[in-house]
């Protein structure tokens, strides 16, 4: 992993002809060949397509063309991003074999920037989970310790980057599905402000929370990838129309003068591993040393984020996943009658966690319960937005753990959904508020030497600012 090159280096070298995209690709395919059988980051590796694309990049460079900001950079795509003519499964049996007739906007954008799609990465089925154990095609293992989960739901993307299979990966984050696996695998993962990255072609889990974002081994690479994919998309009505700032221009400006608040409700509560809490403290100290002021801040309603999330996300999911009925595509169950066929398709095709959330969401939206559940959850969401707004009157960015714990062992939480849900307690409030947040590796735990991630939270459209703080933290690690 240490010999892996950054996306910046690769792109610069390929654009200038110093390295060939094909050679870069072969190096990464060799790493995949060596370790993928253990890690299982991918549902599908696109060897032939990747080789053809890499050769095309090299040909373009040879012809004097500039292939773009990600020229020749291998990238792993979460398998809930639509890829034209290429299986897109969401790690669900119900979509096994389905080949979308179109690309997700983000897929088109990385292609247009010259990146080489290496494959489709494993996830918890339909992005529902925090360990990638809910995949219909087998769990992904944490490359740092194969007996532990990589986190989830974007566990395959996090593992691919951590294992050196690709310098970059795309994931999706609905309640922490980028940041939590990034923390558990020791890589950078970022959830952009809602509306900055197109969701067109991202298979929906919970539409008002889903956002595509980058994984990378360092902060600048993550910013480079986000700059490539974000910006208005007329195909997504929730996409922000106004121009977005550069993420890289001011990324090295440091933190002098910034006000940083440690969120008490996400840091000091029960269930946060003391070593994780200590890492947040160290990160705060490093920022102070860099000239920032640090204080503690209460954002009270974030305590109820988990409860609100587990009503809103399943409610939207119950509707989003209704289309998987065996009529038009994907798995078709047996049955002479349409309703029997629908039921068998869904019974055979969905795993237990997906079924649990569909039932939760259906219940939460039912006549007579809507106001008590879905309605109440939306009111909590409003309170979280309000409380964050108050905090941001006094602070530029907020700080907290990304995950309450380090990567846990396989099977340790699969029998207790509520314990699993707690993995996202620190990340969920950002999704509910539509804000941005980034997880940066900040040390390892002393017992297992597993990575710990620290989360930097920003208000709406503070993406560039949290990258800057993340970059400062990253640099302080070496100090």
């Amino acid at each position: 992993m240490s010999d892996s090159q950054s996306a910046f280096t690769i792109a610069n070298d390929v654009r200038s002809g110093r390295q060939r995209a094909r050679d870069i690709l072969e190096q990464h395919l060799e790493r995949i060949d060596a370790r993928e059988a253990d890690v299982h980051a991918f549902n599908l590796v696109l060897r032939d397509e990747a080789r053809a694309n890499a050769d095309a990049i090299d040909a373009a460079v040879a012809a004097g063309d500039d292939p773009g900001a990600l020229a020749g950079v291998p990238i792993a795509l979460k398998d809930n991003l639509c890829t034209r003519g290429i299986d897109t499964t969401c790690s669900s049996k119900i979509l096994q074999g389905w080949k979308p007739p179109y690309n997700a906007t983000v897929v088109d954008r990385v292609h247009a920037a010259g990146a080489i799609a290496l494959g489709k990465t494993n996830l918890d089925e339909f992005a529902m989970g925090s360990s990638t154990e809910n995949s219909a095609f087998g769990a992904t293992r944490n490359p740092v310790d194969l007996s532990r989960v990589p986190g989830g739901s974007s566990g395959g993307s996090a593992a691919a980057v951590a294992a050196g299979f690709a310098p970059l990966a795309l994931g999706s984050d609905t309640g922490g599905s980028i940041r939590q696996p990034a923390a558990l695998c020791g890589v950078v993962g970022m959830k952009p402000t809602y509306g900055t990255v197109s969701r067109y072609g991202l298979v929906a889990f919970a539409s008002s929370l889903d956002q595509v974002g980058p994984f990378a081994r360092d902060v600048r690479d993550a910013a480079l990838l986000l700059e490539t994919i974000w910006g208005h998309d007329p195909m997504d009505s929730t996409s922000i129309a106004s121009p977005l700032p550069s993420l890289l221009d001011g990324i090295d400006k440091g933190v002098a003068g910034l006000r940083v608040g440690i969120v008490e409700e996400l840091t000091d509560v029960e269930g946060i591993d003391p070593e994780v809490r200590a890492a947040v403290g160290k990160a705060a100290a490093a920022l102070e040393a860099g000239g920032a002021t640090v204080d503690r801040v209460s954002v009270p309603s974030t305590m109820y984020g988990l409860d609100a999330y587990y009503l809103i996300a399943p409610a939207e999911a119950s509707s989003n996943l209704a289309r998987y009925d065996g009529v038009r595509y994907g798995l078709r169950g047996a049955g002479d009658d349409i309703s029997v066929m629908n039921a068998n398709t869904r019974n055979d095709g969905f795993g237990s966690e997906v079924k649990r959330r569909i039932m939760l969401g259906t219940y939460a939206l039912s006549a007579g319960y809507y106001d008590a559940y879905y309605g109440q959850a939306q009111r909590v969401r409003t309170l979280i937005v309000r409380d964050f707004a108050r905090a941001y009157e006094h602070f530029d960015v907020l700080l907290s753990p990304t995950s309450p714990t380090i990567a846990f062992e396989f099977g340790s939480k699969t029998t207790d959904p509520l314990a699993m849900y707690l993995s996202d307690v620190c990340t969920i409030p950002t999704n509910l508020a539509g804000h941005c947040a980034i997880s940066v590796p900040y040390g390892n735990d002393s017992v297992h030497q597993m990575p710990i991630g620290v989360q930097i939270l920003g208000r709406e459209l503070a993406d560039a600012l949290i990258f800057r703080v993340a970059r400062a933290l990253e640099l302080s690690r070496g100090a």
Partner: protein
Amino acid sequence: MSVITSANGTQWEIVSGLEVHCELATNTKIFCSCANRFGDEPNTNVCPVCLGLPGSLPVLNEKVVEYSLRVGEAFHFTVPASSIFHRKNYFYPDMPKNFQTTQYDEPICADGWLEVDGTRIGITRAHLEEDTGKSTHMGGDGGRIHGASHSLVDYNRAGVPLLEIVSEPDIRSAEQAAAYVDELRSTLKAIGVSDVKMEEGSLRVDANVSVRPVGTDGFGTRCEIKNLNSLKSLRDAMDFEAMRQIEILEDGGSIKQETRLWNENEGYTASMRSKEEAYDYRYFPEPDLVPVAPSDELRAHVRATMPELPAARRDRLKAELGISEQDARTLLSTDGLADYAEAAVALGAPPRDAALWSTQDVSAHLNLVGRGADASGLDPSLLVEILQLVADGTVSRNQGKEVFAAALAGEGRPGEIVVARGIAQVSDTGALAAVVDEVFAANADAVAQWQAGDDKMRKKKRGFLMGEAMKALKGQGNPQLLNQLLDERLP
């Protein structure tokens, strides 16, 4: 208001509100750029969005908003600063996402009204939604899903924009319901937002019907009647349903709230599903769309470009052309006909004649051309010319109609046709008098009978002699002059 008197003499009235689904005639669908076109090969106007493929997202068609604003203006609606879409969740194979994206409690148009024959019918709301695909059930009984061996689904219609216009329960008879739909339809057509073809399904009407004894003002339990494919089926179904309910109530029974299907061939309504079987649609706000907030510029543009509405135009036609309400309605019932009459008037035709020749002769021509023909391509100067030829006595009124029909059929200018066919009115008094004298001489019996007869006999014989004279003139005698000569010369 029309009263229904039952067998035992009790007087009842209908209480009804209508739900009208109007397909908006935009070029493209409501949430994607697929063509919105009726009658194409199945599943040719489809894309990831209207097929609801995983990962696809809706984007609201701006024309749909503009058309809704037109409807808002036409029916005196309030169009709020912002309205939103919801998801209506239920499973049905012709609905690609298994939810319908529709407006729910915050519609784009609220609190409007429409005046029908002097009565104001309240319109609660008009809300936007996407149409579903169309299922054809094969091998079963009467095209229903039950018993079918398989079903074919065409998604061309999936995502066609619909505006559902929901009236208040202000309607008191089947006739009034039909008049309401007729006025609604002609208004929607005039403002250019829909084809309003009930037979093609671009206008679909569901009727909520209850009954109550005349003089009471509570509401009875209502039934919703579906499958009404014409104004006639609307009237027939409502009258049938009212009688059905009256008979149940007079037998001491009670009405079950349910949805009933009109059987057009047999002429009755039958239960489709009861209220207890109604779905729980689990409505919630559509997270993939942002609120609909029409700009001030769009509102101003729509206001500035609203055409004259049918009711106002009827009033103007009545006043300017000196015609009856019925003639004004006839002029507006065929595309382009009123425009044709008005264009002829603008070119100098006498207004009333221009209107009446349009309702009679132009309509007759269009009927010959075929169903759906409209007057927009016809030359109004033909009517101006023929009316001139009639006025100056070159041709008689009946000859004029013959020549006009030929001219509309493309045989040439009216003047040319008169020459080509040798049609010319004989207005030479001397020549006409000679013919009258010949007819009298040849029909002395008739003249004698006229002399001896009572009024009735005189009228009969005078008509006979007039006919003989016209026959001798090959129909080309000036009828006014002939009449005059007959009066002068009969003994």
